[in-house]
């Protein structure tokens, strides 16, 4: 289990506080998402999983008054129940915050309470930050486990639950604005954290079914939520036909 947090100080540019992931795997998606804006990437190879949540606002501002953001990177295995819970809660909460367009900011509040400005400023200017590493991972975990105590809007929507057929499609695209695809998306995230192989993705530069399909066919099975500005999608998910052979250019 490893939890990492990237943010910036008033003047120091974006960097991980303390330890950093050995592989910046999420940057492979840079053509499909602007990490400055909300992004959710969940990958699982079965035994292990990794999560990247970006564009999470903080209450801090940089020297020119821009809202400083967080990027959260989590890595773990299906056997670690505690870290799976923390990862699931963080994805569900960030998805809920994004879907509710800034009216909740639940994840922001939890992270802000564990990472106040003074702490961030002192930590980010230290280049020999190794001694802080353990503390920071613990603080991230504490913030994420704190989410368990908070209500989650999506989870509380009572009448929505995926039927077996919907949950069974390996790859599909759905509208981020619609509650049902979000619910089925979270079901998949739960599956990925518990050993299912595949990906769950929300990338803010992907706006059409065709673009989503291209990404899905470039790697492991994937479920994708997009902002459906073109109104291509209804309230339900749109399954993609599985390709027998994955194309050469793989993302993951």
């Amino acid at each position, binding site marked *: 289990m490893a939890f990492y947090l*990237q943010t*910036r100080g*008033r*003047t*120091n*540019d*974006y*960097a*991980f506080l303390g330890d*950093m*992931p*050995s592989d*910046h795997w999420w*940057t492979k998606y*840079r*053509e*499909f998402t*602007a*990490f*400055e*804006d909300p992004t959710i990437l969940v990958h699982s190879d079965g035994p292990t999983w990794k999560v990247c949540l*970006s564009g999470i606002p903080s209450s801090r*501002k*940089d*020297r*020119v*008054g*821009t*809202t400083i*953001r967080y*990027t959260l990177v989590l890595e773990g295995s299906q056997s670690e129940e505690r870290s799976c819970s923390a990862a699931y809660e963080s994805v569900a909460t960030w998805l809920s915050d994004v879907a509710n367009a800034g009216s909740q900011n639940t994840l922001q509040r939890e992270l802000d309470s564990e990472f106040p400005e003074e702490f961030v*400023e002192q930590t980010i*200017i230290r*280049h020999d930050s190794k001694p802080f590493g353990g503390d920071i991972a613990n603080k991230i975990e504490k913030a994420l486990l704190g989410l368990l105590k908070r209500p989650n809007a999506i989870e509380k929507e009572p009448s929505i639950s995926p039927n077996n057929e919907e949950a069974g499609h390996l790859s599909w695209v759905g509208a981020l604005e619609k509650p049902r695809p979000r619910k089925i998306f979270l079901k998949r995230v739960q599956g990925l954290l518990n050993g299912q192989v595949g990906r769950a993705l929300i990338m803010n*530069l992907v*706006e059409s079914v065709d*673009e989503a399909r291209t990404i899905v066919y470039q790697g492991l099975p994937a479920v994708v939520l997009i902002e459906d500005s073109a109104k291509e999608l209804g309230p339900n998910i749109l399954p993609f036909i599985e390709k027998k052979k994955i194309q050469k250019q793989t993302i993951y």
Partner: protein
Amino acid sequence: MANQLLYKIGVVGPNRVGKTSLITSILKDTQTLLSNTSLSIHPEGKPTKLRLDRHRKELEGSLYAKEFNPGGLKGTEEPFKFELMIDPGMPEMGIRLGLLDYPGGWIDDERRPEGREKDWNECLSWINESSVLLVPIDSAVLMEADQSRYQRAVPWILTTTEVEDIARMWAKERKQRNREPALLILCPLKCESYFTDNGGQRDESKELFDKVSKAYSGLLKSVRDEASHCKIIYAPVDTIGCVEILSAKWKEEINLPGGFEFSANYLVRNPGKQNVLGADAVLIALCKHLVEAKQGVAVEIAREHQSKAVTAKERAKRDEGFFTNIWLWLNGERDLRNKIAVMLDKKSRDDLKRVLDMDEVINQLSKKVYGSRVHEL
């Protein structure tokens, strides 16, 4: 094969200086410059288009609310390659301008996050391969430092030493490729408060020029020493146009290397519409640069006819980078002209006309005289 020239442009400046705003301004001002010509410029590819659209919306929203705050524009967290296409309206033809944006804090070795060396080295490779280097400069930091203790903080805030180091590295590479033209453009940004040609009240343009020259004297010397053939342009840009500094704030911060943090409050001038000025100089400079490069290749081709021992093609192939690109581009264009010249249908004639028009527009732009803000150094 697509006959498109990729024009790599390096950008080097500190974090939050406004690199993305400069790229947006180049697009906007160039669209105006190319109006009434057969060429157009547009973002190439959806990622570039969406990012520039978002940046524009953030800015417009801020101006609409009449409360411009540079902080309303998001900073950059990951490197991203912006591509702008100068398009003659013919498939597979045109000039792609590639500008690499990255977190500005990375230029400082001491502040660059661990683990990003590989990404930073890729940025440096891009800069080295670029025959044009853009240096965005925060004018407000230079101009509002009205006490010596603030002035001492200026090099730290603008990271002039780090910018100079990268410019020197770039110039050394240009020295190695001395048959290629090289162009350095110093672009002071946020200049709205210091010129009277875009709605401002104060003319402090000379003072700005003097301060830029002084603050970047080391950089200028390094580039001149390393690459004497390099052309240097000073091109101040109003990226917003309708704003003016109301007050500047220097906050003492003992943890910062320079000891001070700078910020400014802005007034939005009516009617609160963005009015970019000066960024067209970048395209004019690029056209001059391109025409010079084409002339260089033409000389090589002429030599090729005179001497069979070493052909221009072989020479060009030995060089990687801009010169080879120009050579291939010109040859592709020539082949295309030859191909469509023997076709008699209307579409082929139209295509040929577009190719010739593009050449003509670039030639015309290259002959344009820079505006009064611009200095050739």
